């Protein structure tokens, strides 16, 4: 045990300052309504849904939980059920085999809810595009509030996208 404590003390605090929200990432601001204001100030619960990614976006989402980004320290945590979530963080393209599961996850998330689409594929279908097996971008299947480009987007960009979506709740 003393070895663990020693290592923790030696490691120190790695957490860095979070990024600011980015207005450029925001779209469909008219969707934001007064109801959402209710929820500002409360910890944000996110449900991640992989709708067909190559798994690189997932690697960067995992990194958000590391000590440098310390997403929980910002009051954001990932939850196991869409029924506990304020926000869906969706990677894609949406494969046709995930289309129904994604819609059901969206429907199971209580209103008001936010959706952040992640990665070039989530934004526009990316290199996989639309085909017999792919519906392309997330917005083709469920409404999207903020789309974060990148292949994959760096943790800071993901965090910025999340904060952009959250801060849009303060508007109106």
């Amino acid at each position, binding site marked *: 045990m003393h*070895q663990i404590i020693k290592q923790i003390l030696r490691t120190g605090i790695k957490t860095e300052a979070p990024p600011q929200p980015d207005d450029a990432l925001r779209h469909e601001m008219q969707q934001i309504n007064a109801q959402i204001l209710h929820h500002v100030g409360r910890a944000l619960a996110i449900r991640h849904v992989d709708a*067909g*990614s190559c*798994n690189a976006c997932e690697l960067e989402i995992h990194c958000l*939980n590391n000590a440098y980004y310390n997403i929980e320290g910002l009051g954001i945590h*990932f939850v196991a059920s869409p029924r506990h979530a304020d926000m869906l963080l969706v990677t894609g393209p949406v494969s*046709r*085999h995930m289309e129904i599961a994604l819609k059901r996850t969206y429907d199971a998330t209580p209103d008001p809810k936010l959706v952040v689409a992640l990665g070039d594929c989530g934004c526009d279908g990316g290199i996989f595009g639309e085909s017999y*097996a792919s519906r392309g971008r997330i917005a083709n299947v469920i409404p999207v509030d903020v789309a974060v480009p990148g292949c994959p987007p760096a943790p800071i960009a993901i965090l910025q996208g999340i904060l952009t979506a959250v801060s849009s709740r303060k508007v109106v």
Partner: protein
Amino acid sequence: MKLDDFTSTFPRLPGAMPVWHGSVSAEDLRALCEQVLHGGGKLVALWGSDETQANAHYALHVALVAAPGMLVLSLPIDHEKPAFPDLSDLFPAANRMQRSVTDMLGLHPVGASDQRKWLRHAAWPGKLYPLRKAFDSAGSFPLEEDGYAFVPVTGNGVHEIAVGPVHAGTIEPGHFRFSVVGERVLRLEERLGYKHKGIEKRFEDMTLQQGAKLAGRISGDSTVAYAWAYAQAVESVTGCTPPRRALWLRALLLELERMHNHLGDLGYLGNDAALVFGFAQFWILKEDLLRMNGEVFGHRYLMDRIIPGGVACDLDEAGLARITATLNHIEHEIAILKDIYDEHAGVQDRFLTTGRVMPELAARLGLTGMAGRASGQAWDARAQFPCVPYDQLDVRMATHRNGDVAARVIVRFEEIAESMRLIRLMLERMPVGDDLIAPLADAQEGVLGIGWVEGWRGEILVALHTGKNNSIQRLHAHDPSWQNWPVLEHAIMDNIVPDFPLINKSFNLSYSGVDL
């Protein structure tokens, strides 16, 4: 036909790896597969292709590894009788590969005990085959009922736990059906294919140059291995030899990819055994490595750094110093963390004997790669079939025989140490030169190129069949997860449900890589 005759009768394909290719009859296909099996060899990949436009038949291709190297056997299949002999009785891992060939091309394994669909769920009708040339890739069909026939398990006190496709964590989608009594798992049945996004069909719209980017996105965590395998395949069909410095840089990138994946998984393995400290510590090291990748090579996961003909990045003195410093730091920290893992009673209690795959079972089922090496399957292409620069580095393969989570943890620790040793040697001996890319000649039409790379999870294979004007007629990319997913069903048997996340993470298989 005798195995020895094969390598003397059929030509060796040009390129970096020892690969022989020839067309065989159905009888010879079975006979050669049996000889490979009995000689201690293994099945690497199995795929089909539509060649009806060129010569009025389909074909089945089987890649095997035997002592001299890789044998790729092609069996022409009459378009009026689209069937091939079942190989799953010899190689159980062929089961899902064969079912995928049926789903994608409409070729049927005669006599196979399991002929359920696999990659096809509901996105296209059963009588249409996406990898046939007549199939319109832009077509969209109304979603049907999947109606997959899971194997029912009955008995006193047996109940089912169905999980996924959307999992309770940041994980790729798949469906797991556990049949349990109390906490004990009697049987697990996997249903994958949720991420099928038409990758192989997509390749057929691309040129050899364009395909490189897509190859790097088949499974993001293995982007370097896929990009290298793809580049090898293209270089084989264009007769290109990349500059030596480029080859050394490729190996450097591949070892960095191995390190960041093992570091991340070691962190999660601690986490899943309730030692959150392990997650915190290893993910600091992983982030250190990823940031170094970004600074030195311009991408945290090293995507698109390997391109056909060479590499799209270089290493200067500052980069070299940055890598050395990062490795020194990681090495120092890992020594401390390994001691903590080794001596932590709670962690070892969860790791030891959990999710055990004994060497005999591993051999029978074809367990491969890192997980295979933890179950006594001593295969590592870097050591056995070394291309440049591995032929000068004398790679030490990490193996273990216990086959449990603990063994997979030990193999990962050892592979990180070996990767660091290799990287240091590469930094020391890196050939100098300004050339990082060699020009590609035009590819001949209708030839096969193979890429074969030992990624962090196991061997990645890229089989490239060329079309006209440097186009891709057919591309099959094979992930070692094809072999290892079915073994996971065995690893969980008789374990308790709460150990599944731990066992699953100790394998950490790709969904995207097999759903294609």
